[in-house]
């Protein structure tokens, strides 16, 4: 507790574990029916209606260039809050499975490898070592800071009303 | 002169004597026949009283006459049906399998002898048949050594004389007659060559077997039909013990070891083999 502790929500894509700051997570839901939206990139699966809010859904596997997989009962959508031009917007991220909420200290986190610090790869905040496992800690805002997502958010995503 | 009658109790005594001393089992239905034979024997002996005759036969012989009459008794009571090449398929079997018999014979290997026992040889036809067969089929380096035994001294005596008449029931071919016999009036005498292969001995099959070396082949045909199961079992067990490994036992064509306990392996009908 001496250093700065933070809480991460961990999830997995295939064999790899990923983490995202719990403060960015709004809620976790099971798979819902996704309404596809035409003329969007492949990784944008469409939109859902969550209790009256329209939320765009991204498939992280596709985004990360991994092999696509049939959604099953373990597939979850992590609804995250993204700061978009000062406005908090909701975004659904499809992952294979959510694991747990863990508390990590700074000394458990190593910086991302230097060679990966290209424009494409600066979404990795660091590499966390949790109970013998390695968790890639993502900057979820950075993951989706691309033209198409921004456009999508501008048009379809609902602004969170505080 | 009174009719010779044998009282029931003496008939039973004689039956018991025959069973205990020779293993011959006489069932009640056959006792009449025994009585007939005894009447004949008694008449020949000039003895009218069955009790007297019984004691005469049962007690150890002290006189020459008693010995003669006892021999006559055994000779009459036992059956001496035999012929040359009787139940020929046994001899054919030996002929077919001779190489294997020699191969498995220990005595053929170590002493160059094929040891055969004709265990109830009667007047010798079976033993001489075996000797002639051996002369025909054995390789030059193997000699036949044939033991022939019978319980009847009179039969053994005739066997040792080796003089025969051939009747229609004799299965012997002219080939064998011409080769191994010489004519003697109306009769035929077996040649010394064959005689020398066979050793005749007086032997009672119910007595312990005194043999030193194992046999390769034992013939005991149409003997066990006169014995009961107990005696048969004991006899077959004794045969097993005096046979060499893989030795053969030949029994009569109506006989079978089915109904008794034994260690033999069934080879084909009436042919059994030691393991």
């Amino acid at each position, binding site marked *: 507790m001496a250093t700065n502790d933070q809480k991460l929500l961990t999830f997995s894509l295939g064999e790899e574990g990923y983490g995202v700051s719990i403060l960015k997570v709004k809620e976790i839901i099971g798979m819902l029916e996704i309404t596809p939206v035409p003329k969007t990139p492949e990784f944008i699966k469409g939109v859902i209606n969550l209790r009256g809010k329209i939320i765009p859904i991204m498939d992280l596997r596709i985004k990360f260039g991994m092999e696509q997989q049939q959604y099953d009962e373990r597939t979850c959508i992590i609804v995250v809050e993204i700061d978009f031009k000062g406005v908090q917007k909701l975004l659904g991220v499809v992952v294979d499975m959510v694991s747990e909420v863990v508390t990590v200290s700074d000394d458990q986190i190593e910086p991302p490898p230097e060679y990966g610090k290209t424009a494409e790869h600066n979404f990795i905040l660091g590499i966390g070592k949790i109970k013998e496992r390695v968790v890639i800690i993502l900057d979820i805002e950075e993951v989706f800071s691309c033209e198409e997502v921004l456009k999508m958010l501008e048009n379809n995503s609902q602004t969170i009303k505080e | 002169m009174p009719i010779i009658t044998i009282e029931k109790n003496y008939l039973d005594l004689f039956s018991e004597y025959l069973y205990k001393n020779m293993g011959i089992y006489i069932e009640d239905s*056959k006792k009449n026949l025994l009585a007939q034979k005894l009447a004949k024997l008694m008449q020949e002996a000039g003895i009218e009283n069955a009790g007297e005759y019984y004691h005469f036969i049962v007690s150890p012989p002290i006189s020459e006459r008693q010995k003669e009459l006892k*021999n006559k008794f055994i000779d009459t009571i036992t059956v001496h049906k035999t012929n040359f090449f009787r139940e020929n398929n046994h001899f054919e079997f030996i002929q077919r399998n001779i190489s294997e018999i020699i191969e498995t014979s220990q005595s053929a290997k170590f002493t160059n002898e094929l040891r055969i026992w004709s265990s109830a040889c009667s007047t010798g036809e079976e033993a001489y048949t075996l000797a002639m067969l051996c002369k025909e089929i054995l390789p030059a380096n193997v000699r036949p050594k044939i033991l022939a035994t019978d319980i009847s001294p009179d039969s053994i005596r005739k066997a040792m004389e080796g003089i025969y008449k051939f009747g229609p029931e004799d299965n012997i071919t002219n080939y064998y007659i011409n080769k191994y016999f010489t004519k003697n009036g109306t009769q035929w005498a077996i040649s010394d060559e064959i005689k020398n292969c066979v050793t005749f001995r007086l032997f009672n099959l119910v007595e312990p077997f005194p043999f030193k070396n194992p046999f390769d082949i034992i013939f005991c045909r149409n003997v066990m039909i006169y014995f009961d199961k107990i005696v048969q079992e004991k006899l077959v067990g004794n045969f097993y013990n005096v046979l060499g490994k893989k030795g053969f036992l030949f029994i009569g064509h109506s006989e079978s070891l089915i109904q008794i306990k034994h260690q033999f392996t069934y080879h084909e009908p009436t042919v059994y083999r030691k393991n």
Partner: protein
Amino acid sequence: MFNGFSKSQIGFRIILSILFVELISLASGVIMGLNIKSPTIIAACLLTIIISQLIAWFISENVKKSVRNVLSELAETSENLGSLSNELTVTGRKLADGSTEQAASIQETSSTLEESSSMIHQTTQNTKEAEILAKQTKQSADNGNVEMQTMLEAMEELKKSSTEISKIIRVIDEIAFQTNILSLNAAVEAARAGDAGKGFAVVAEEVRNLAQRSAQAAKDTAGIIESNISLSEKCLDISNQVSKSLEGINNDTHKVSELLEEISTASQEQEIGINQINKAISQMEHVLQGNALTAQESASSAEHLNTYSNTLKKIKEELTYLVDGGKEVEKRIIPTISREVEVKKEIKSQKLEVKIKPEIKSVPKVEEVKPKTEVKQKVEPIKLKTEEIKPKVEEVKKVKAEEVKSKAEEVKSKTEEAVEPKAEIKPEKEETKVEEKPKTEEAEKPKLELKPQIQPKPVVKKPLPKDTDKSVRPEDIIPLDDF
């Protein structure tokens, strides 16, 4: 033969008439010698005596001739009797040997059949047992089939309920998953609440643990149920196969049962057949044993007959000596003959009493018996003949003796008596001759050596077995050590 007899009869009559003439001449001589004492008469008397002596000599020569004739007849008869009895001995021996051999053969056959019979009986018993077992097997297969059906149903039920359990487990798993997500959301909320949410975060964590354990348990259970289902499916398959196999067993045992029934029937029939054969064989066995015995008896009877024929020969020799030598020997001969006849009678009665004869009557179908009985019957006339010859011979001897003594009175009475048996002898002799013929033919066949007994005294018992070769005594010489 007939001619010979009539000649001897004429001879007797001549003797009688001459003796009568002699008597008269003697008597007249005596009368003349007593009453008329003249030399002429004495000379005439002497002449008469001489003539009568001459006549007497002539007559005695005639008598001798007649007796010689009788003697030659006797010789011929005894010779025939001898050869006949030899033939009879041979026939009897052969018959005895044949019967003994046949009896042995039959006895062995009988024992062989008994063995077969007992084996067939065993087969029958075994088949019956097998039949029962086959029926039991069929019943068991039937029962098995029914039980299998019940089991199949139970299996089906088991499978259904397993599937139900599987569904429930899935629901449980679903709930566990939802609970897990809820707990994660709670954790998210707690984190957002900052320090205030810390306690709640712990609760959320516990809930999540429970949810995960539920999920794990559900997963394990699901695995077990899954394998249960696949096992029960396998069981169903196997049970179906077993059911089919049982069906097959059922059909096969039915066939086996039918076959066994056939075998059982067949072997029962065989058993009955064999038993009948056995009965017949044992009857034959008895008859043959009897035959052997009877044949042996007729052989020994024939031997005795031989003895008598030898005795006859001897009588003839002695008679010849009497006729030619003229010495008295009857005292020696007659007792011998009569003793022999007595012995013979004894033997006869003994023979007739031996119990085999009625047995032959009881089983007349056996052919071999016949020659034996014939032989026996033929022995009778021969015996009669010899008995008849005896008195005749005695008479002849007496006549001779008396003639020598010239005792007219006795001779007369004796000759009167002697006429009687003569009349009997004549047909008797004819009969015997006729009877001899078939016997001789029958006796041609045997080739066996025979040992006729030549001793005058008949031997009733045979003390030793006939073919005892003293040179070979296996029981004395050889122990079994060399084997």
